[in-house]
């Protein structure tokens, strides 16, 4: 009976440090930075930043899709290993997540720079150096590199949970390897796909370091703008408005992805 009350400190904590801060974001987003009066200007002023929003979404969608396409075979391959190897590979996937992502991104700068490791190699064998850095491609590479583990781990969890008897049952009922995959493995790993997409897309769309190091001033992202509103230009009202829009965009994107995978699921059930 009394055990219920053990949630009370947690509820108070979350109210103070999650709900109220979000309300303050809402408040700042709708007030003027100088007068403090209610205004829609921060939100309407967002139109100027529409291309940046679009670029952020576009690049992170590409990064998410790439992560899914290369992450799925990896997760699948891990799940077919011996249990001990599976544990080890899982840890090796997790290890980079525990190391400073700033420094790891910096290593990519060293690799991709105009006089970086790859271009040095190219020129030493007599080829022309390539423009590898300060473009959208390098930014997508940075996103894929940083967030790929967040795709592989939930996929691996979902795939390894599939009961091998189900695959045998599908084979028994006449599915070939390809059908087994499309009719059984893929639909059953959908929860992993959904959470993987969320876990890659959300940090990718809001990143503010990758673009600074791997992109150019022309390929700035939403995260950079928000950061500069708090750390540089200091217009927290505009920053709050952008955070709010970003948050809403992300909820919409997650909603679409959930809806997409769910309706897929229902179709499967109908068949």
């Amino acid at each position, binding site marked *: *009976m009394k*055990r*219920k*009350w*053990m*949630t009370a*400190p*947690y*509820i108070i904590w*979350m109210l103070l*440090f*999650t*709900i*109220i*801060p979000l309300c*303050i*974001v809402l408040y700042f987003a709708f007030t003027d930075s100088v007068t403090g009066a209610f205004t829609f200007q921060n939100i309407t002023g967002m139109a100027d930043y529409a291309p940046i929003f679009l670029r952020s979404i576009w690049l992170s969608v590409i990064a998410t899709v790439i992560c899914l396409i*290369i992450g799925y*075979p*990896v997760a699948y*391959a*891990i799940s*077919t290993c011996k249990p*001990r190897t599976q544990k080890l*590979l899982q*840890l*090796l*996937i997790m*290890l*980079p*997540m*525990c*190391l*400073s*992502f*700033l*420094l*790891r991104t*910096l*290593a990519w700068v*060293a*690799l991709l*720079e105009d*006089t970086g*490791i790859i271009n040095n190699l190219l020129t030493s064998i007599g080829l022309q150096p390539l423009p590898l850095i300060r473009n959208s491609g390098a930014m997508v590479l940075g996103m894929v*590199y940083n967030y*790929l583990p967040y795709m*592989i781990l939930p996929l691996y969890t979902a795939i390894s949970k599939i009961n091998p008897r189900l695959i045998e049952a599908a084979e028994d009922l006449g599915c070939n390897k390809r059908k087994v*995959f499309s009719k059984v493995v893929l639909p059953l790993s959908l929860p992993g796909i959904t959470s993987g997409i969320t876990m890659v897309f*959300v*940090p990718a769309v*809001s990143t*503010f*370091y990758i673009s600074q190091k791997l992109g150019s001033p022309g390929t700035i992202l939403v*995260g950079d703008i928000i950061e500069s509103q*708090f750390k540089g230009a200091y217009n927290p009202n505009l920053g*709050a408005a952008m*955070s709010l829009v970003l*948050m809403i965009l*992300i909820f919409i994107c997650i909603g679409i992805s959930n809806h997409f995978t769910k309706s897929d699921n229902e179709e499967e059930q109908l068949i």
Partner: protein
Amino acid sequence: MKKTSRVITVIVFIFLYVPIFILALASFNTGADMAVFKGFTFNRYAELFKDAALLELLRNSAIIAVLSTIVATILGTCAAMGITKLGKKMRSAIMTVTNIPMTNPDIVTGVSLALMFAFAGTMLRLNSILGIWTLLIAHVTFNLPYVILNVLPRLHQMDPNLTDAALDLGCTPVQAFFKVTIHEIMPGIIAGALMSFTMSLDDFVISYFVTGAGFVTLPVEIYNYTKKPIHPKVFALFTLMFIIILILMIVMNIIQSKTDRSKGKRFSKAGGVL
């Protein structure tokens, strides 16, 4: 299909570890440019242990990680205990709130907390309240969901009769928790605490917004470093951390597979009897 996916897996592992290898190499480089290896030296490691400022940053990170893990683990475990006893509506409401820090981008969490601390600062008529306490609060906030989401499944899996059995044998509810329940949910508590600790040690985005000049953690300072040419002793620190985490993970893996094996034996024995 199996072959293709194995080839992709090997390529992905190379992709993931090449930058780490480059950083490790840079820590032994006599030159400052990562791209050019001039000569081999251990000097960076010697410099690292002489750099009191860098070591203090490391200490600050460790303090925040340890404190936030302890607070989040206790608060989160209590919350999870209570959540299992709540009604459906209340429970789903709390779980929605629990998911907010998980699905919100870090930058929004950071910004919202920064705005609130600024607001609280003006209310308290202080110039800036940003510092160790705001950092600790922020870290506890983003660690709490990890603890709860790790402990809750353990509580659900636990036979509810175990708690009743402890009460039946004379335990007060508090005794029942410490003598029985905690043993059952320990793996979840440990997993939650470990996740909190690594998340907190590694966090840069949220810390960046809520930290003040007085108390800075290592990742935040590294961000400031990376704006100018970075000193190679930072790579030495990175390499050391890589090795420590690698060893920890291998040890954990060995311990786990050992306990798994003894458990497996036990099950096969029980199976034999039945």
